């Protein structure tokens, strides 16, 4: 096909435009796409030859992509009827003529349909690309940075010999290391740009700032070029997250206020951290030289260690973790993290965007399919005489349906090409932030196979629906079509007549007591033609779901109540006392301070205690939050808060130990075994989701304390947080709202984008489809308009009737959509989140009701109304006699 097109160009001195407008339209279009693709192939090949040294794969990839482009294009275009039959001129000519005429006759309808198809293809391809790029980026970073398969954080003294012994006893360890870190509070970190007056502090950050030196064996911190960074003395590499958040640049100065004065570093670059890249991580690492580290270590920072292991077989991680936790001599008062958790947390933040994009595109495809079906059925009805005539002269059904299919499959093909092109641009923008935090994903076969597969899927689904609808042609009978202009056969006509007769037997005016007669007629029409009016409410239903779900997820993740999913009660302030040698002294001081502070209404204190429980490998450690749970506002999935002799477990722990409410659960505290009853299961996404809660006082090893405080009316949590932060340097005091928003910043900003995208697309599609649908209805109802106009209904009255019908269906669809989004939508999204294994198994939306259940529906209804008003205004200029003759 292409070869022939090209030979035409050369041999007969015909340009593509000649082929386009005098020969075969589709062949012309395809020739253009081929010439475009071949020129790309040529350019890429030339550049490849010129830059022979560059074998990094980018150019090779481009050439691969060109070849894939042509292959898919050829395959897709062969699906277009009329393209495949190159040998016979007549059918091609017919397809071309028909399509061109149709485009000329109904430009609005065709463009609207094309736009919806482009949207669908675009979002589907973007979703696939973002997903592939995200996974690729995370994997690339993991490959280069080699994060540990298991790590344990710890504060305070530890037994180095025990760690050595453990390593010797476990041959499955490939390598291991102890990373020394020194933590500084964000409040003592500041930056300045030399030669300018620009400066600032990092005090807004709520996560721990840990200064480290570069590791030698694994867990590397990588710079922008994905190479292992080594700062010189006086230099530092700052986390990429801070670069983005505070707008830092290389060359800026980083100042640390230590106990012995100001330490100043030049920012040499920015590092990607495979362990702590995700915003869900509670700490971040700065890289300094060995000498600088030593100085910082002795200048007042809080020392901390991470014990890290890489295993020969990463699949053995959970067994290894159990073995580590069952060894009592090993340090473990901090969080334990596995490689899988790191990977999931990293992938989830941006993976959720990809899922949201795919979700939006699925709904859009549903809308596009409904629309395609409506448009095709309408066309068949309009052109039933032509179809009858074609059947009468003996054209087979396949030729006739091919005539229609060629147009729609070509439109879908064009939509896929345009949508795919737009997706390349969009996905670059959507993943740029992520690629900075992680690594540039290498280009693999999957890089182009993912979006292409998504596009082929869109193409196939649309074509399948077209074929299905076009089967109607097989059932059309010549006489019915030519004489009665009906797509129904005799039996169907009789059935329809009977149905109609039954329906009209009862007078439509029985209950009419004056009032707007137009509305009465409209209601009767809606009742009788419910099937034909289904498209609008369905589209609005889907549109509501489409804009509500991402926003609901966004507000849920933004809500202060979301902490109840983080295993914490709803409160205004969270105060963390982490392990230190004088922990108990600090706690006592804090207790006194909070008790006498009138600005705090209520303070709950919980101790983080390490207890032991029976795992697969014997006794292993488990973190338990111990305290008074009466009056606690945490949401329990099943059961409730623990009282004496009871324990409540997080979802992941309940799954891990295979217990549920009312089961028995044995723990060992201070060497003695206690059998407790499981009283509740709750959701938790902190500490890898593996936590527990017990009532009473801590009796074992306490690794820290958490306070949840609610402020008295009118008090500003931020002010109180600053106050206590200064008074208790060892404590981390954060206002809860700020804590949640920072912890979930990736997720929320991603959802904000997805929600915005969904709103824009939903409104665009709603307006487009309403206009398209009503325009087609108007054409279909010409006769009806003519009759009513002849009887004395004015143009504005006819317009009012159309508006009434449109707005009523739009309102009904929107209302049902709101109900569906609030019920089914929540279950659907909840299921997806639960599958992600984050520790949330039952996500209840925390919506902004005014926004999603009032403002959004009103917005959509306004869009429907404006479109209806715009289309119906055409009725005012109507021509009764022309309508009647239609």
């Amino acid at each position: 096909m292409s070869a022939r097109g090209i030979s035409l160009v050369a041999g007969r001195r015909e340009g593509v435009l000649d082929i386009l407008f005098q020969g075969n339209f589709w062949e012309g279009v395809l020739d253009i796409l081929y010439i475009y693709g071949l020129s790309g192939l040529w350019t890429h090949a030339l550049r490849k030859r010129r830059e022979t040294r560059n074998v990094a794969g980018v150019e090779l990839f481009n050439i691969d992509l060109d070849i894939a482009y042509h292959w898919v294009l050829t395959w897709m275009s062969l699906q277009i009827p009329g393209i495949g039959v190159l040998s016979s001129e007549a059918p091609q000519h017919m397809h071309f003529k028909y399509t061109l005429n149709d485009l000329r006759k109904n430009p609005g309808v065709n463009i609207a349909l094309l736009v919806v198809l482009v949207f669908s293809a675009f979002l589907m391809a973007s979703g696939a690309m973002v997903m592939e790029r995200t996974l690729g980026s995370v994997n690339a970073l993991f490959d280069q940075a080699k994060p540990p398969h298991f790590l344990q954080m710890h504060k305070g003294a530890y037994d180095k010999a025990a760690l050595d012994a453990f390593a010797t006893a476990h041959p499955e360890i490939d390598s291991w290391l102890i990373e020394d870190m020194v933590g500084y509070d964000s409040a003592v970190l500041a930056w300045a740009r030399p030669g300018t007056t620009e400066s600032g502090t990092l005090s807004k950050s709520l996560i721990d700032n840990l200064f480290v030196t570069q590791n030698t064996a694994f867990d590397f911190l990588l710079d922008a070029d994905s190479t292992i960074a080594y700062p010189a003395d006086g230099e530092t590499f700052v986390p990429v997250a801070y670069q983005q958040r505070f707008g830092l640049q290389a060359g800026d100065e980083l100042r640390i206020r230590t106990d012995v004065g100001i330490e100043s570093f030049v920012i040499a670059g920015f590092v990607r951290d495979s362990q702590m890249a995700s915003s869900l991580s509670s700490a971040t690492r700065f890289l300094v030289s060995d000498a600088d580290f030593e100085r910082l270590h002795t200048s007042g920072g809080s020392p901390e260690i991470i014990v890290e292991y890489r295993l020969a077989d990463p699949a053995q991680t959970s067994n290894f973790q159990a073995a580590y936790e069952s060894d009592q001599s090993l340090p473990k008062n901090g969080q334990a993290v596995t490689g899988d958790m790191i990977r999931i947390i990293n992938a989830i933040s941006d993976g959720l965007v990809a899922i949201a994009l795919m979700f939006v595109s699925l709904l859009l495809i549903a809308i596009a399919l409904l629309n395609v079906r409506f448009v095709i059925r309408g066309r068949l009805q309009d052109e039933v005489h032509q179809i009858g005539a074609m059947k009468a002269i003996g054209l087979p059904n396949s030729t006739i349906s091919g005539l229609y299919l060629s147009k729609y499959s070509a439109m879908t093909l064009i939509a896929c090409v345009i949508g795919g092109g737009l997706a390349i641009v969009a996905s670059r923008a959507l993943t740029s932030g992520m690629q900075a935090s992680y690594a540039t994903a290498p280009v693999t076969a999957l890089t182009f196979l993912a979006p292409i597969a998504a596009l082929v899927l869109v193409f196939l689904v649309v074509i399948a629906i077209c074929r299905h609808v076009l089967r109607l042609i097989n059932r059309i009978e010549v006489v019915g079509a030519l004489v009665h202009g009906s797509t129904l056969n005799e039996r169907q006509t009789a059935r329809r007549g009977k149905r109609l007769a039954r329906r009209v037997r009862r007078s439509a005016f029985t209950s009419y007591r004056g009032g707007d007669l137009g509305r009465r007629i409209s209601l009767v029409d809606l009742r009788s033609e419910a099937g034909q009016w289904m498209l609008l409410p369905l589209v609005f239903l889907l549109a509501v779901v489409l804009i509500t779900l991402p926003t609901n997820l966004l507000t849920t993740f933004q809500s202060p109540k979301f902490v109840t999913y983080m295993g914490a009660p709803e409160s205004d302030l969270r105060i963390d006392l982490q392990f230190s040698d004088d922990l108990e002294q600090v706690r006592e001081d804090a207790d006194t301070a909070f008790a006498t502070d009138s600005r705090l209404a209520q303070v709950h204190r919980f101790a983080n205690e390490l207890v032991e429980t029976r795992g697969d490998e014997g006794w292993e450690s488990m973190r338990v939050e111990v305290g008074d749970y009466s009056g606690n506002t945490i949401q329990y999935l099943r059961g409730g808060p623990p009282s004496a002799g009871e324990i409540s477990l997080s979802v992941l722990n309940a799954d891990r130990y295979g217990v549920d409410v009312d089961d028995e659960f044995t723990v060992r505290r201070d060497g003695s075994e206690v059998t407790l009853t499981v009283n509740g299961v709750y959701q938790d996404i902190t500490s890898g989701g593996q936590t527990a809660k017990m009532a009473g006082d801590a009796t074992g090893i306490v690794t820290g304390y958490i306070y949840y405080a609610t402020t008295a009316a009118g008090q500003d949590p931020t002010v109180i947080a600053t106050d206590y932060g200064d008074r208790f340097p060892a404590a981390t005091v954060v206002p809860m709202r700020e804590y949640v928003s920072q912890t979930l910043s990736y997720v929320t900003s991603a959802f904000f984008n997805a929600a915005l995208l969904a709103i824009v697309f939903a409104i665009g599609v709603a307006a487009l489809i309403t206009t398209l649908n009503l325009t087609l209805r108007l054409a279909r109802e010409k006769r009806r308009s003519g009759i009513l106009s002849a009887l004395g209904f004015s143009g504005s009255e006819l317009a009012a009737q159309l508006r009434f019908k449109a707005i009523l269906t739009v309102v009904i669809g929107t209302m049902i959509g709101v109900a569906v989004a609030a019920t089914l939508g929540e279950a659907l999204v909840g299921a997806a989140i639960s599958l992600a294994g984050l520790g949330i198994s039952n996500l209840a939306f925390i919506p902004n009701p005014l926004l999603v259940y009032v403002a959004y529906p009103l917005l959509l209804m306004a869009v429907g109304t404006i479109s209806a008003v715009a289309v119906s205004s055409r009725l005012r200029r109507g021509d009764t006699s022309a309508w009647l003759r239609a």
Partner: protein
Amino acid sequence: MTLSEAPSTSPALVTTALVTTALEKSYHSTEPPTRVLNGIDLAVRQGEFLAVMGASGSGKSTLLYCISGMDRPTAGHVRLGDLDLTELSERDMSHTRLTKMGFIFQQAYFLSNFNLRDNILLPALKAQPKARAEVEARVDAMLERFGIAHVADHGITQVSGGQLQRASICRALATKPAVLFADEPTGALNSSMTLEVMDALTGVHRDGTTIMMVTHDPACAVRADRVVYLRDGLLVDERDLGAWQQADTSRREDELLSWLRDHDF
């Protein structure tokens, strides 16, 4: 049809119901524009039954549509009683059509989602929304009179063409219009149904309704008081059939046919 049923013309007809002055209509969608009406001056008397005849494409239907405001004339005036229809807004024109005009088309244009009786009730209820009982009584009486009461609750696909056209007449009369317009009312009917419909129309005229009917069927036109002949958008001739009416009905038919032959019809 038997000529004995031909209506009688009252000698007291003097008031003019409808007047057109220099009525013109051109369609600009063609190149050059097609001129369909070339300046029509026509007066229809109160209570008169006027038939408009002419070859296909002579502008008969366009004249009807322009007079009734369903099509806007390019130039000229139409007066209905005291109203200049060409000066009316679209809204007022619609109201005038509702309250002062009735229509019968070649094809029975009915709303398929309503039964026959509802279709007839519709314009009457719109014109008199407060007088539902009165409207219903009037419509039911008409249904009886035109012999379609037994199919009143039928769907429009369940009745014959003749019954549908009689229902059209009912609907047109339901608003008690000043003028009844009929555009080839029997064009789609067989001969027995044609007779049914023309008998019904003649009856309506006998009751005093002014009728303007476009037809190409002499057997229908012969029922009229007067016949005008249209050629290429111009009114070229007219024949008053009133003189022959009572004296000799077959003379009336002969007269019409010979007149039409003079116009190469």
